[in-house]
Every structure is written in C-alpha cells, then in structure tokens.
C-alpha cells in the first residue's frame, strides 16, 4: 500500500494494516487485510447470511473445520459479550468479512471482536469482496481454502490448500465433544441474558444430551423447559445412557460429515424406541442414519437465519436458522404408506413433519410408533429467529407422552420465554 493511503488511514479506527491472503482450492484468490490472529488457517470455505449474531456464529462448534464468511459486510459493530458464546472457545478455522469494526457500540459489549479473535487465535481477514466470494462459493460449491497473514504468495498458499486435509470423511465431532459427562440445568443459565428471558421452569425432566459439539443455547433452551441434563461425550454407549433411566435423550448439533460419526448413530439405533428422543441438525442426521436413511448434497446449502420451513402438521411457517449442506432423502426411510408417511422396517411409521419452502427439502421428521422426532434446522436460533423455540416445549410434551406434541401454534407462542420489563 502506498504511503499516502497509509497516512489516510493513520487517523482512523484502523490505523495499521497487515496484509492477508485468502486462496480457494480452485485457485481463486482475494487480497485483504488481517483482522484477527496472525498465522495461517486451513478449512472449508462457507458462508452465513445472518444480519446479526456474528459472535454466536463464530462460537458455534458446528463450524469446526470451516472458514466462515459473513455476508453482511460490517461485522463487530456491537462488540462481544461472552454470555452470547455458544461454546467456551471458537471451533471455526477462520473468518472472512468485508469490514471489521474495532470500535463497537452496545451496552452489553465487553470487548471488540478483533480483540476476541486475537485472544482466541482465530485467523481472520477483512477488506474482501465477500459478495463476490459468496457468489463464487454458491456456484462452485464448498471447497478447501486458506487464510494467511504469513504467506503472501498465491501459488505457494494454493499448493498448501491443495494438500490440506479435506472435511469430507473427517470426524470433527470428537474434536468438539466434551471429554467427560457433566451436568447442565437451570442453575447454569447466565445472568447476562436475564434481561431478555423469563425465569426457567423448575426441573421436570431428566435428559441425557449427546454432545456432538452442542451449542450452549440448545442446553439453555432445554433447561428453560425444565430439563436437568447430563451432557455426555458423543460416543457414550447407549446401555450406559439407558441405565441412567432418563426421561429423554437429546442428540445435538455438530460439525462435519455425518458419515464419519458412526459411533454416535450406532448408539441411536439402540436408543430409539426405548426412550423419547429429540435431535437437532447433526442429531437429526444421526437419527435418520440410525433408521437407514440416505443423505443427499443440496444444490445450494442452507446458510442463514431466514429460511422458511412449514410445519406440515399445523400449516404454520417458521422462519428458521439453518446451516447445512446435506439433507435426508425422506423416501429412503421406508416405503410410502400415506401422504408424507413411510413405513420403516425397524422403527415403524415415520412422518415428514417439516419441509423447506424454498426447495421442498425435508427439514423434520417424527416417528409415529415410537417417541422420537428431529429437525435439520436450528430451533435454538442464536443467531436467528426464534419461531421454532416451541420444539423444546414439544420435546417436553413428548416426554409427557402427548401425541399432539408437535401441534403448537407458534403465532400464539412467539413471546413464550421472553421478558420485556
């Protein structure tokens, strides 16, 4: 950069620039500026279209192994509040933004996002034409990429990208799951969000949570409907879980390729039919795999906080937070016996309960002969709309043995759990 341009920036909130480079596996390269930790990061490039909630995205364990691009250009505006974190530490590999804010403004902010990224060692790059990048990724699909603040040479960095480990086939779940079982309940809800949320229900259910990289807000959502939880590692044997005699089992979200998480869905096979089960995202995929489903890659993955999903049982539309590139092929779960219902050889009838309005892909299923249901998207939101919060309540109703557990009218349910004064 020229001396004059450096002088022009000298008096701004971002006086010093360290060049950084972003290279995609197909050779596409973007010059930018470092805005996080120094170093070199490799991962699969992906994007998220949420307008706010960057901190929840960055700390979402499901992004393990990925370099996340935020489509909204100015990121970091309201700073960082640790209470919003979805995990103790970020699991993503790197962050790409158009413009990073170093001088945030919000009463809840405790530090700036670039300071957080530096403290957590996350490599990040700004001054990127993120729209061009997103369009490229949309057209050419997910691919490996690297951000470097050390290597300014496109050819050299590209060579490293092409030899980096691919995401496909890698078991990232074990990198983000807990090491040993621990409890989580109403007492663990943070004070920092008490301004917005009503007090939780008293403990009503004992639930075991398979931690495939669980988001904190899922645990919070379960705690608010009265679940006292035991959070266990991803490969905990089903026998051990059932020996605990829980009221229900929850299968969490998690990163990477579901096919690589054999040791989780093998347990699910043994749990289904024995205990009420609810799964989200990776958890949904584990349930589907346990029932023998086939997965397909979506033409355009779902990556934001604005995806419309219809609940086929109520006809209601939920605006949902989503982050997935693979989807269950619903007919692969069994032979069709009624509209949107298939007969599964092992677990009986399975109903398609939720469908994406944009591309008609399956987003949720319910087992009609055993107590289990799951959704591909993120009812816990964080970030994103909370229309689907009712699914936590639905899980509670399922544990109560209610057949109509999924028939909650969200138009009357928007304010549930929130606090306004």
């Amino acid at each position: 950069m020229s001396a004059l341009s450096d002088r022009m920036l000298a008096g701004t909130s971002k006086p010093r620039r360290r060049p950084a480079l972003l290279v995609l596996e197909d050779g596409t390269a973007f010059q930018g500026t470092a805005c996080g930790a120094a170093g070199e990061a490799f991962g699969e490039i992906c994007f998220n279209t949420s307008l706010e909630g960057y901190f929840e995205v960055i700390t979402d364990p499901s992004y393990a192994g990925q370099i996340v691009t935020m489509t909204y250009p100015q990121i970091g505006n309201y700073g960082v509040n640790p209470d919003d974190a979805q995990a103790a530490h970020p699991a993503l590999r790197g962050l790409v933004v158009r413009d990073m804010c170093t001088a945030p403004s919000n009463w809840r902010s405790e530090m700036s996002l670039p300071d957080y990224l530096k403290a957590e060692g996350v490599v990040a790059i700004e001054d990127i034409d993120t729209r061009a990048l997103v369009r490229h990724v949309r057209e050419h699909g997910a691919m490996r990429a690297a951000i470097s603040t050390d290597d300014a040479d496109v050819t050299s960095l590209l060579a490293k990208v092409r030899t980096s480990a691919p995401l496909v086939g890698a078991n990232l779940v074990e990198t983000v799951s807990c090491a040993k079982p621990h409890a989580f309940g109403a007492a663990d809800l943070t004070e920092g969000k008490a301004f917005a949320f009503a007090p939780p229900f008293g403990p009503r259910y004992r639930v075991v949570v398979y931690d495939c990289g669980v988001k904190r807000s899922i645990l919070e959502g379960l705690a608010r409907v009265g679940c006292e939880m035991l959070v266990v590692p991803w490969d905990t044997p089903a026998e051990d879980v059932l020996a605990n005699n829980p009221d229900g089992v929850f299968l969490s979200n998690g990163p990477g390729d579901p096919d690589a998480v054999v040791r989780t869905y093998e347990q699910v096979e043994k749990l289904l039919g024995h205990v009420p089960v609810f799964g989200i995202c990776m958890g949904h995929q584990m349930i589907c795999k346990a029932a023998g489903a086939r997965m397909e890659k979506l033409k355009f993955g779902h990556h934001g906080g604005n995806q419309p999903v219809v609940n086929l049982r109520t006809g209601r539309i939920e605006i949902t937070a989503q982050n997935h590139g693979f989807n269950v092929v619903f007919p692969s779960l069994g032979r069709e016996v009624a509209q949107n219902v298939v007969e599964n050889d092992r677990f009986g009838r399975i109903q398609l309960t939720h469908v994406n309005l944009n591309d008609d892909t399956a987003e949720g299923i319910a087992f009609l002969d055993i107590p289990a249901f799951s959704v591909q998207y993120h009812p816990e939101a964080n970030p994103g709309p909370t229309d689907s919060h009712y699914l936590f309540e639905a899980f509670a109703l399922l544990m109560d043995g209610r057949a109509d557990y999924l028939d909650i009218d969200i138009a009357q349910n928007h304010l549930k759990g929130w606090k306004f004064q």
Partner: protein
Amino acid sequence: MPKRTDISTILVIGSGPIVIGQACEFDYSGAQACKVLREEGYRIVLVNSNPATIMTDPDLADRTYVEPITAPTVEKIIQRERPDALLATLGGQTALNVAVELAESGALERHGVEMIGCDLAAIRRGEDRKLFNECMAELGIETARSGYAYSVDDALHIVEEIGYPVVLRPSFTLGGAGSGIARDEGELVRIVSQGLELSPAGEVLVEESIEGWKEFEMEVVRDKAGNGIIVCSIENLDPMGVHTGDSITVAPAQTLSDVEYQRMRVASLSVLEKVGVETGGSNVQFAVNPRDGRMVIIEMNPRVSRSSALASKATGFPIAKVAARLAVGFTLPEITNDVTGTTSACFEPSIDYCVVKAPRFAFEKFKDSDDTLSTRMKAVGEVMAIGRTFEEALGKALRSLENGRAGLGVDGHARASETKAGYEALLERPTCDRIVYIGCALRCGWTAAEIHEKTGIDRFFLDRMADIVAVQEALRGSRIDEVDADAFRVAKRYGLSDAQIAYLTNSTEIVARTRRKALGVLPAFKTVDTCAAEFTSSTAYHYKTYDSAENESGERFPRLVSEGRDARMSPESGSSSSSGGKKAIILGAGPNRIGQGIEFDYCCVHACYALREAGYETIMVNCNPETVSTDYDTADKLYFEPLTYEDVMDIIDVEHPDGVVATLGGQTPLKLARALEEAGVPLMGTGADAIDLAEDRDRFAAVLDGLGITYPAAGDASTLEEAVKTAARIGFPLLVRPSYVLGGRGMAIVYDAAQLRRYMGEAAKISPDHPVYLDKFLESAVEVDLDCICDGDDVYIGGILEHIEEAGIHSGDSACCIPPFSLSDALVDELRDIAWRLALSLGVQGLLNIQFAIKDQVVYVIEANPRASRTVPFVSKATGVPLAKVAARVMAGERLADMSLPSDCRELGYCAVKEAVMPFGRFPGSDVVLGPEMKSTGEVMGVAPTFPAAYAKTQIAIAYDLPSSGDVFVSVADRDKRYIASIARDFSRLGFGIVSTGGTAKTLAASGVPCRKVNKVSEGHPNVADMIADGQVKLMINTPFGHGSRGDGYHLRLAAVRHGVTYATTMAAAQALAAAMEVAREDGLGVIALQDLPA
C-alpha cells in the same frame, strides 16, 4: 388458501395530494396494489385526488376517480360502482381515515362493502393510544408511561406523576401533527391546547419522555393464516425526539446484538397478532435505552407506510405488492419471491449492503419558521443510498440530496464556525444541517465521545464519521497527481466523491475522475437480491460500490486473481449483457422537494413505458425511495444511485447507452445535460445547446426578438448600484430572482427601491457567482401555462392552462384550469402560434413548457422550459393524452404525425382544475401569502362540467370540507377594495354572515353589503382573532396589505392555518371559492371516472 372468489370488484383508496408526512410512497404502494390485483383478475375502482400519480393512470384501474377523498364522495363512488371490498391500507393515513369514517357511519355495511386488509377494530387498536397501550399491557410489552388528557388540567395532573419532560401526541393526526415535547408548564399548556384542537377526538397523550434513546423500526408482514415475517429492521441515526421521517435512518439495524434483535422481532410479530392486523404490512417502532437495553414500544401503523416503501427499496421485498395479494386471501407461502423468481416470499430478506436514508428539508422556503427537528415531521422528501458499508452509503446519501453538497463536508461550503466552541449549540439542537456540523466539529477537534454527549447519536455512527473525516483530512493538501490508486481506493471506501477528492487536492472533478480511471480505480455494480447472494436472482436492481472483485452489471470485468482454470464467473454474472437491442438511460428527479415533486417522477416512469414499447432496454437511475421509478418493476434495469455527474457517468461507462433522457426529471438531470454532452454522452431529445438557449436570458431574448414575440422588459445586476440603475430603466414593480433557480427559489416582487435594497442584501447569499435578474412585473396580468411537444417539424399543443391567481404567484402554487375559461379564441390562437414558432426555433425535440402573462390583451412570454413541466401529469389526465409518453416516443425518433393523436384544438366538453396544496400548517410562523417563490408540496385535481364545480372539488379535496354557514371574515388591501363588494355579496347571498374590520367594512357598507364590524387585534378584545379561535369564522378572505407585512393580516392568516379555517389570499381565489360553494350547494357535486370523459 388461494385467492378469494367471493369478491370481484375492489375499491382502492389512494392518499391524495403530496403533503409533508404523506408523499409519493403511497403512489408506489397504490400503483403496485392496482397492478397486482388486476393481474389476479379483480375489477379495480380507484379514487385519488392527486393527478400526478401513476396509480391514477387510466389503464391501471378499471375505473379511475380523480375525486376528493372524503367519505361523502367515496360513498357516491361506492353507490355507482358497487364494489365488494374496500382496500384502504395502502393509501396512508388519508385512506385509512376515510375508511374508518365510512365504516363508522355504517356506509360500508349499507352498501355491502367489506374492508379487506385490516378491519375497523384493528385500525382502532393500532391508532388509539389507549387501546394500543392496553393491548401491549396484555402482551407484557412495555410502553412509555403515560396518560390521556382531555383538557389542559388533565395534562397537568398526569405530569405530576411522570414528571417533565413529556411527549405530547394528539390522537388521530397525520404524520404526528401537533406533537411536541414539553419541558415545562408553559410548553405543556401551549402544546396541549393546540393538540386538543387538532385531534379529531379532542384527546392528547401525555407520555414519559424517552428522548435520547435509540430508535428502531421493524417492517412486518402478516398473512391471514397467522404467518408473520420481518422484512427489514431500521435504526435511526438521530435518537428519539426527532421524527423518524426527519431522521437519517440506516438499514439493517447496526447496533443490536442477536438477543436484542430477536426480542424486538418477536415483540413486533406479537403486536400485529394482538392488534389484529389481518393481513398486510405494518410498521412497529421501538425505543431502546442505550444504557441498559430497556425496550419500549412507541407505536405501530396497521398499514403500509413511508418506512414500508423504504424497506421495500432497501431489501427488494415488494411489501405493497405482497400486501395486496394477502388482502385478497393468499398466504405468504403461496407467493413467490418476486426478485429471485424461485424462492418463497415467506422469508426474511438478508441483505449484504448498508442502506442510508436521508431526509430532504425545505426550511429556506419558510422564513421565520423554527428549523429545529422534533416529533413533528418537517421533511419534504428523502433519498436512499446503498453502499457496502455505512461510510459508503452515508457519503452517497449526502451527495444525493440536491442541496449542493458532495458528501460529508469538504465540498467547498463554508464552515458554520472555525472554533470548537462554535459547534456546541449547533450540535445540541437537531436541525437539518446537524449531520454536516458533526463533520465540521470533528475537524475542529471534537471527539466522537464529546459529540455523543451533545447529540445522543450512537457512538457507532459517530466513530464511522470520525473515520471518514480522518481520511479526508489526511488527503487534504495533497496534489491530485500524488493521489495514487491505493489512496483513491481508500478514499472511495470511505465514501468520498470525486468532487470531494478534487476539493481536497485543489483540483477539479473532471481531473480527479480522469486520474482515478487512468489508475484503474473503477467501481463495480452489485445486485439487490433479497438473499445476500445465497440464491440466484433474476432482477436487475443494482448499486455501485468499490468492492470490485466482481461486477454484476453492464460490462463484465471480473477481477478475481485467478490461478486455477475453474475460477470463471458464473453465467448470470454480467447478466445485463442484453439482447443487443438499443438501450436508453432515464435520469430520475432525485428527492422530492418543493418545486420538484412527484410530477417529474411520473414523467420518467412514462418515458420508461414508452421507450420499452419502442423496443429499448430501459435503464432507470434515481435515488428517491418513495417513487414508482425506483420500483425494480418499472424499468428493465434499475440503478439506485445519486444523480451526480460522477455517479451517472460511472453507470454510462458500463452501460454504453444509445441515449440518455435528461429532460423529464426536472432540474436535477437537466443541469447535468451539458456536462454529459461534453463527455460525449448521446442525449435523447432536446440537446444541451437548446436547453441553454432557453435558459440563458440573453440568448433567449434574442430568439424572442427574432420572432417578434413580446416579453417583459428585463435586465440583470451583480451589485446594488447596477440593480438600482436597471430598476430606473424598467420601472417598478419588478420581479427579481437569482439566475438558475428552481421553483422560484429566492424570487420576489419588489415595489420600491427600499425593498430592492433589502432583496439584494439577501440574494447575494443564495448564489454569489450568478447575477440577479430583474424583470418588469406585470401586475394583475392573467398567467397561462402551455405544454407542448415538438418533433422538429410539428408541434402538438398538449394543454393550455389558465391560472386562477394573477401573475406574480408561482405557477406551481397557482390553481389553473383546462381549458382556459376566460380567454378569447383569438388569444388562444395567438398562444398556439407563439408555441409553434418558439418550439421550432429553439430546436426542441420533446416537451416544452411556456409561461405567458396576458395584460391588456397583450401576450408576453415569461419563460420557456424545454423539459417536462410540473403540469404534464395534470394535462395528461385532463386531456387523456399521455404527454410524457408521446415525448419519449418523439425522443426515440417517432413523428408526431404518425402517432394518430387526437386533435389538439378539440373542445373538451368539461373543465379540469388543478389546485396546489400548501404545507403551512407544518411551519408555524411562516406567512401563508402566496408569491413568486413556490411553497406548495403537492396538487389535487377536480373534473366537472363547469369551472366552479371543478374548482369546488379541488377545495374539498384539500380541506375535506367546504364551510356552508357561519361567518366570513373579509379584509383586503386597498387595491382590492373596488372588487370586494361583489364577492362579499355572493357570500352573503349564500347565507354567510360577513364580518370586517375598519376599511373593508366601510367599503362593504358603502356598497350595501350587510356586514358586521369587528375590532382589529390591535383594537382590543373581543377582536377577530378571538372569533377565529372560537370557531365562529369559517372562511377568511385576506389579501396582504403592502408586502412582507407583519401586521394584523399576517397573524390572522397564521391563526386561520392553525385553526383549520379555509382562507383565500387573492381576489381571484376568493371569487372562485364563492362560485364553487354555490355550485357545491345547489347541485351537489357528481363523480366522474376518467374512463367516462368524452374522448
């Protein structure tokens, strides 16, 4: 749920004339609704009194009534057309109020008309503060602490509990009229007593002040199944205390964390549910305490609003279109996202850019009025700008405002103060210039933190502005040839315009631009697609940025650094590479302001339609979010960009148009014409030289001399001495004005040397580089406007409009009539003859507007404008000939002779009157007397068999009512005394009591008109002011004594405005009013659809 089949005819109510707080955003929403509902097969009956709207184009509805939007008129239309349903949620507060009135009176039930979109109960819950607060309490959502006052005493009691300051809001007033903040008892008493009068319910809400809190808006859409979505969140830059219409606003919300945003989101959805908005768009406003996040709901509008139009343009989500479909029974999931063409409309748009809206004010038009921004809206228009960052968007917005600014400062304007202390007061008081003062203050050493303390503006915005200023100041003083590519890029990323860079480097815009381009620092065009590029999109809606790794419009110039072979651009990038046909760019009119309103947007939209029909690919450039022209549906391609040389040329550089239309968007594009032509851009229609020929006084005078056409004696002057000398030569009275002005800005009539001296002192401020023009003023002349189209061989006379008010009143403020009602055939022939000769000799290719003054049977040409005039839409509606379309076809090379237009000298067989709508109620303190400087914001039209009936309709359309009994107060200047008797006699005959002071009373008595004498204000109580305050005076005729008088008349006129008394300030208007009232009373006024007018 599919669309309803149990209804077939739908009555759509528009919003009437453009007034402050209700502008052309409702033409945009109404036009969309009509289009969509007709597509769905419904028969549409439309009522709107505003002729300058696209929605009143006869082909947009089956039956178009340009009639007053009042309950009695609408009921007459209902009786004739028998609609099954009434859609009132797309016509602003005006439509909603009429719908409420019709519902309450039982008229809807009587005629079997169902209100769709929103029912009476929901409207009441949304608008009645008390019911609303109850709803919120039931939901558990906080509102500001408050109470209702029905008297000043009530208000005082409430304040005892909640303490000062308090916000006062009269119930059911438009755009927050009558609202204010009281900090002490004096203010409380004043605002409450005014508010009780303004409120139809005689009710004022007294509310805890949350001034200084952050303000947010949520645009919500709901369907009848109960599905709800947030289309857009908007954050106000100015904190609570400034009306959102007067505030700079930013989308999406910038400073809310996810948990705060989601809490606001669910609250918004629940509010619609609770209030019972069955379907459609609504707007919910919140205030957030910046210290602890406490959130209170301010209000909601159960209808499409100004913010909905902004949200639609900001996201690409067409709220009105969707709302119209929802109103007839569709649900959100049944509707496809118009922009992507593939995904569902039941979603929440994600945007990957920042949008800044900036209001446009007109305080310079209203001397003596307070320019402090408050809870009562005063902006007359707005601009929207899209950039990838707030910095980029803010710079664009500020240079879009058409106020001579090139961005955030550093554009050659003098600073308000050179010292730090000088900004203290300027920062504290919210005004239209405060945004600029913030820039100056930063340059004078204020920190963002200090400015935050003074203004309450969020640090996020101030820190961004501080960065912009830091970049500017570091560039200042460099030579332009030292500015390298990196420096240009930095400057551009912080939103600096070429003009600002030129100013800072002591260069010129052209040099800066040339160097920038030579260095390869080129912008790219991105697409507004509702989904942040997650899906492909089929709509060509673009904005410019300096994120230029990829260009999505015009020429393809992908600049991704590519090593691998796979890195090619997607097939749809550069989607605009078109069919290879001809391309035309239409330059829009920019923000609405007084003197340049919706009329020009109307012309631009028509040009789009006509040129598309003529086989062109049409490309619209404009920055006004309220308009139909900036609907992505209007042109084949939309660039939402400022109308500056730089921004327009950047588009031309990528589009390479075959022609650019600069003569339909008013002064904004016209003043670019010469520079564009010099840059080699092909202008369509009248060329820059012909424009100059008409605008340059000397050249124009030479043309007139050559043709033997009479014009008033004239001269110019750069100094007072010259002016005095010229005045001596021409003689008083004189019409004086600065050169190159719009809407009569700075124009005045001076009657003697003293007035001339004062004028010259003030005029220097307006335009220091240009001289002042002095014209002989033709007192009491009849003024006539003529709109015609010339193709080089033929001239088509579109319309001849006789003004009601005499010469000296700006043509935009004067009522006028087609056909001319008092001119002889010989005079009309002379006007036509002059128009022919003038149009041909100026070399006009398209529209020409000529203003005439006729005095003592002599026709004078006052001026000629070779462009679309303000009256084109009105003339088109009145005659059925779409002039702007015809003009566009002429520009595209068609011949008038081949267009089979109806004869331009046919008898119409009816009268069409246009009347101006004045905003004086918004500017307390400003005199209401009309003059050569235009002050009106909008217009209405009345059509009837006779002139008085048509005029009566216009008066009803503005006032919603004509007085029918009570007292008429008459007080006229000496020069008018000879003529007042017959007018007063008319009113007396109509049953009004006549009341006069001193001189006028004497005149009337001498003429035998029964008249009661009252005291002047200066003569003690009880006086005429008391009568006005008591509501005894229903009509006031008051012509100004002398000029710029600040005597009794001034105060009485102000009182009339304040108390909603109908008034006339010219004799001509008074006479027309008398005739109008007579016809309104005797025959009643029928209604007539445009489609029924004789062809």
